[in-house]
């Protein structure tokens, strides 16, 4: 079928993409690895020589490290919990017969298309501002004292903003998965007298298992890298300094490249652990 001629042509056609991605992956990665073993302060003397694993030790023993791990886990975990739970419920609801389903779908998807800096800024000012924000008006209407969202409840606020952005993604994927569920199976269960909660637990949820896994894995990779939402709202203050943000500050703000690079290597390792599971899920599908 495929001749020798077409094989070498195919290899040639693949080459640009492969070479570019290889360079994009290897060059910066090797540089980061190299910097991570050096004392490197661009504004204070530049490259000051090799220091072994000192940066790796210093990065994890700094007082900012553990809080940043906690902040990262809170954001990733919180957003995953909210988007998956509400995503499943919303997908089930949207799958029911109703009027104007297409329009509702559009309304639900919309936040995904809003650029992160806009959604962060809109939430920060128009909703979470303690004086003029809409939520402050709402609180005052009920006679309560408005909350200073981004300082008193900074992490929950960020979780809320990011969840709003990612709920559409989860819902859309889960809805796609739910639509492939055989409705006859559900009807048969209903006729046999299975109550709604059992039908959900034994038929719908297992069917969604794979889609939920994919949602969790893909979102985790993106959520570990959340940046603009913090950059715009708190600038890393009030306990919202995530691992990503801490590395950004080390590298660009305090210009300690060695230390930041060591942090970068940690982040790469962390992302790769998640990635392995995702690749397994995707790879399985590739065989089918």
């Amino acid at each position, binding site marked *: 079928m495929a001749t020798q001629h077409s094989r070498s042509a195919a290899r040639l056609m693949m080459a640009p993409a*492969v070479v570019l991605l290889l360079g994009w992956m290897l060059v*910066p990665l090797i540089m980061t690895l190299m910097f991570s073993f050096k004392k490197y302060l661009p504004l204070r003397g530049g490259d000051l020589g090799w220091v072994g694993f000192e940066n790796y030790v210093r990065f994890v023993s700094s007082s900012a490290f553990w809080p940043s791990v906690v902040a990262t886990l809170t954001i990733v975990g919180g957003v995953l919990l909210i988007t998956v739970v509400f995503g499943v419920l919303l997908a089930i609801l949207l799958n029911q017969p109703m009027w104007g389903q297409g329009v509702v779908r559009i309304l639900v998807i*919309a936040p995904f298309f809003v650029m992160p800096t806009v959604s962060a*800024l809109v939430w920060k*000012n128009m909703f979470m501002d303690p004086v003029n924000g809409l939520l402050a008006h709402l609180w005052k209407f009920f006679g309560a004292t408005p909350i200073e969202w981004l300082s008193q409840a900074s992490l929950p606020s960020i979780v809320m903003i990011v969840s709003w952005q990612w709920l559409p993604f989860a819902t859309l*994927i889960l809805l*796609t998965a739910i639509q492939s569920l055989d409705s006859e199976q559900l009807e048969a269960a209903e006729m046999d007298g299975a109550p709604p909660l059992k039908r959900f637990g034994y038929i719908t949820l297992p069917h969604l298992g794979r889609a939920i896994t994919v949602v969790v894995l893909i979102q985790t990779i993106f959520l570990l890298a959340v940046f603009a939402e913090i950059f715009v709202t708190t600038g890393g203050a009030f306990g919202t300094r995530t691992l990503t943000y801490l590395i950004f500050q080390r590298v660009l703000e305090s210009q300690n490249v060695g230390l*930041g690079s060591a942090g970068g290597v940690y982040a790469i390792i962390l992302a790769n652990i998640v990635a392995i599971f995702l690749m397994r899920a995707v790879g399985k599908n590739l065989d089918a």
Partner: protein
Amino acid sequence: MARAVTQQRKIINTAAAWGIGLLIFFPILWTILTSFKTEAQAIADPPIFLAFDWTLENYAVVMERSNYMRFLWNSVIIAGGSTLLGILVAVPAAWSMAFVPSKRTKDILLWMLSTKMLPAVGVLYPIYLIFIKLGILDTRTGLVIVLMLMNLPIIVWMLYTYFREIPGEILEAARMDGATLKEEILYVLTPMAVPGIASTLLLNFILAWNEAFWTLNLTAVNAAPLTAFIASYSSPEGLFFAKLSAASTMAIAPILILGWFSQKQLVSGLTFGAVK
């Protein structure tokens, strides 16, 4: 459906879905509405929903003060350029993987996907340094290259998924009839591939348009796109709600419209075909 759904249940479903849909959409709606208010009305307590004096003044002020057109133009060039360039590189690669698959095709695809998972912050300084050395920091060229590389795995994957669904028999028939490789690509494959390429283009344009790590960290003045334009409103001008809303509306409106067209492709594109 084997069983008719009662009218009552349909009404309840509709009400619930519309209620939740509007709640989720509300921040966007509120931003759009606020952009047409005066600053005083924008922070009025109790909030004014529709009965305000509609004005276009905020848009005029934003346009005048911040050179909005330059940011918009940068966004268009960066998102458009990186996507087109990416497609140019990815089409031959995806074509060969779909039609002349080898034992390693699957590994190459998965490896490409794995490059997408590298956290950007891990390679921030090297890229920054390379950009300074090459003199492309704060240029559109630099961002076009970075965003192209960043989205290339998704572009290859999406195209591969589409191409794989084109029946190989058609190509063989063309080959039997004596079509050369060039003719095969030009006259047989391309027309069938156009819808797939178009939706890949659309989705990746959106992703590049909204990208907010590299665009914030690698630009200052000259190449700053809309993401940076909005971030510059974070303080103290952020307190002018109506103007902030006008700026935000202008930044998201074009992409919201494109996004609504691409919602079908979103799922397969962003899950790398893992959910269909």
